[in-house]
């Protein structure tokens, strides 16, 4: 048995760190960080998430079992542990060493040496017709979720406070079909940056729409169009991290749970779709739910109006 305590010394790559975390899974974008191609700073720290950014792009670290993604990585920490206790602060420079160690701050090192590569299931998905059974499973899961989202009115058939939202979402659908740029811009303007949550509900529903649309368009070889340009333009209204996630969704990339929910909707069975949706709505207070609504609406509109293929 061997115990190497070199970490207490300054000489090892992980020198001096109080916490030495193992990265379990990491998305492909972490290559940029590990290889030193891009230099990242700590952007924000939450109890169960650490965001890094290079001024444009973000990378996010989550506890194991909270899902991965192209720009996400998971690390092994205990359920009771909070990233807030790791002495991290926004603005700290993130240092990568030997393509393996990432020092987030004076006290924390994350070892990516054994991390499993995260791969998107959506890369090879064959998109056929959207099936109603799957849509139903997704919708039921969303309706059962207790998320306190202002977007809820869009799916539960209740007018109420969601009335304005319903109109805006309907505007998104109709303006794309009618190729009405002014109306689309106005509808996006009412959604982007709107609502509660670290990522506003309006952003999340737009991200869900973008993700589903991007995957379905990619499957039939359609390039970016009218909608994509309008979304990019509207993103100036929201904050950098949320805008980044919507831009990623435009590229067909999102958090693992959103991607899985979409994957099962398009290529799995109804049970998997419901299971995937359950995991999706567990993200944040409303974020997962709102993305789920976006995915649902995009799929529903595609089924009825070929919405994703138009615009």
């Amino acid at each position, binding site marked *: 048995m061997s115990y190497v*305590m070199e970490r*207490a*010394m300054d*000489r090892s790559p992980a020198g001096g760190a109080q916490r030495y975390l193992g990265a379990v899974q990491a998305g492909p974008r972490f290559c940029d960080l590990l290889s030193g191609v891009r230099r990242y700073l700590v952007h924000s720290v939450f109890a169960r998430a650490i965001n890094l950014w290079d001024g444009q792009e973000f990378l996010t670290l989550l506890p194991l079992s909270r899902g991965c993604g192209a720009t996400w990585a998971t690390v092994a920490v205990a359920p009771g542990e909070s990233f807030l206790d790791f002495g991290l602060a926004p603005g700290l420079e993130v240092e990568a060493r030997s393509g393996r160690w990432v020092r987030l701050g004076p006290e924390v090192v994350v070892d990516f040496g054994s991390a499993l590569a995260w791969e998107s299931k959506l890369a090879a998905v064959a998109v056929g017709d959207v099936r109603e059974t799957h849509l139903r499973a997704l919708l039921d899961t969303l309706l059962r979720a207790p998320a306190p989202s202002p977007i809820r009115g869009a799916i539960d058939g209740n007018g109420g406070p969601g009335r304005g939202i319903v109109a805006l979402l309907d505007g998104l659908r109709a303006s794309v079909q009618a190729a009405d740029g002014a109306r689309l811009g106005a509808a996006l303007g009412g959604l982007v940056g709107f609502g509660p949550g670290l990522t506003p509900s309006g952003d999340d529903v737009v991200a869900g729409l973008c993700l589903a649309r991007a995957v379905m368009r990619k499957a039939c070889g359609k390039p970016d169009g009218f909608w994509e340009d309008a979304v990019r333009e509207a993103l100036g209204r929201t904050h950098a991290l949320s805008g980044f996630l919507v831009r990623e969704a435009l590229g067909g990339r999102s958090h693992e749970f959103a991607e899985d929910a979409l994957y099962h909707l398009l290529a799995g069975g109804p049970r998997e779709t419901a299971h995937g949706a359950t995991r999706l709505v567990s993200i944040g207070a409303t974020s997962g739910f709102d993305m789920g609504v976006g995915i649902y609406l995009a799929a529903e509109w595609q089924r009825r109006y070929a919405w994703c293929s138009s615009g």
Partner: protein
Amino acid sequence: MATVKNWPPTGAVVNLGSSVFARSMRDQGASVYEVLWEPPARGKLELIEILDVLAGREDIEEANRLALERYSSAQPVLVGIGRARDVIPGFGGKMLLHAGPPITWDRMSGPLKGAIVGAIVYEGWAASPEDAEGIAVEGDVEFSPCHEHSAVGPMAGVVSPSMPVFIIENRTAGNRSYCTLNEGLGKVLRYGAYSSEVLDRLRWMADVLAPVLAKGIELSGGIDLKSIIAQALHMGDEVHNRNRAATSLFIRTVAPYLLDTGFPLANIRRVLEFMNGNDHFFLNLSMPAAKAMLEAAHGVPKSTMVTVMSRNGTDFGIKVSGLGAEWFVGPAEKVKGLYFPGFRDEDANPDIGDSSITETAGLGGFAMAAAIPIVQFVGGTPDDALGFSRKMYRITMTENRFFSIPVLGFRGTPTGIDLRKVVETGILPQINTGVAHKDPGIGQVGAGLVTPPWECFEKALLAFAGRYA
């Protein structure tokens, strides 16, 4: 058969290494002495082996006791002022002395070159600075370190043959040391300035200041520098970067005698004003006092006591009592500190001057806790000042018998740098110093803290092992 002593052990545990274990043993109720462990000798096994061989050697301890005794019993007394070529041993002809270890013209830094040029013009060996540079380039002037002539000089430390120098005598052993008179602040030769204003001042110092002071010193029968230093440490000086109290004490001591010198009152007044206007006047006395004490301790075979630490603006060199005349040299480092308004990091010359002789003698940065106001000048906090002094006890052999630090309970200053301890702990001597502009003639641009390069001590230890292990 009781083969094991002290069993069961007391609840006291010394923890070396992981602090996780220290914490968990404390949680269990043990009394834990926590050692913040770092690898000895910066982790170099070759050096560690040498340290192990040298550890606890009674002959080395004996040699160090002798060297320390010679240092401690030294009584540096200012006995007079003389012309450099007349009094400094081995000095004459077209020779200039400079600070630090030996160096050739081509490797000299800006301030040292400037001071050399100024001194050549001052001596009349060249009519203009351009000619002077030509002479220096062609090697018509011999350069030699002050330290090889029992002399010391602040900053560039340039001494030319006709300059007046203080003569300090160690009344115990009889050895003497020498230093120029301090020119004041601003555009001065020691920072490499050589304008006519600078040279005129030097001439006034030779023609008026030196004769008046020399007579006063003669009348006083010699001025005990050691007691002035000891008192100044209790008045906020560390006699390297702060000499305000010591300068005042010196003036108080010498002033009555000056009145009896018979020189015109106007001259005496100017002399007093000159000294009074320069808080660092005493630096050129604290340095040779330190030199006189340390030179007495030099040359004790097997002693690991460091007796010289000095810089020429390019290299940093040390000497060790038991290693004779050999210099152990590494690159001079940049000073970390505070800059005067309008100056920045890039303006700074690497560390320069013989003034680190004060630290070598247990003063300066070693006595920083005695001079807490100095942190306003060199940067840091009062706690840093206390911390620096405390840290130096870990690399020194003893606590000074004469110089003490009130705030540390009148603990003697850390004295007698032990080469072995520096290498063992990896702690480098802490030096308080002024910062010269890298270009000649601009002067002091700031002050701060610096250490010698590690190489000096590593090389010295290897040499020591080669000779005595």
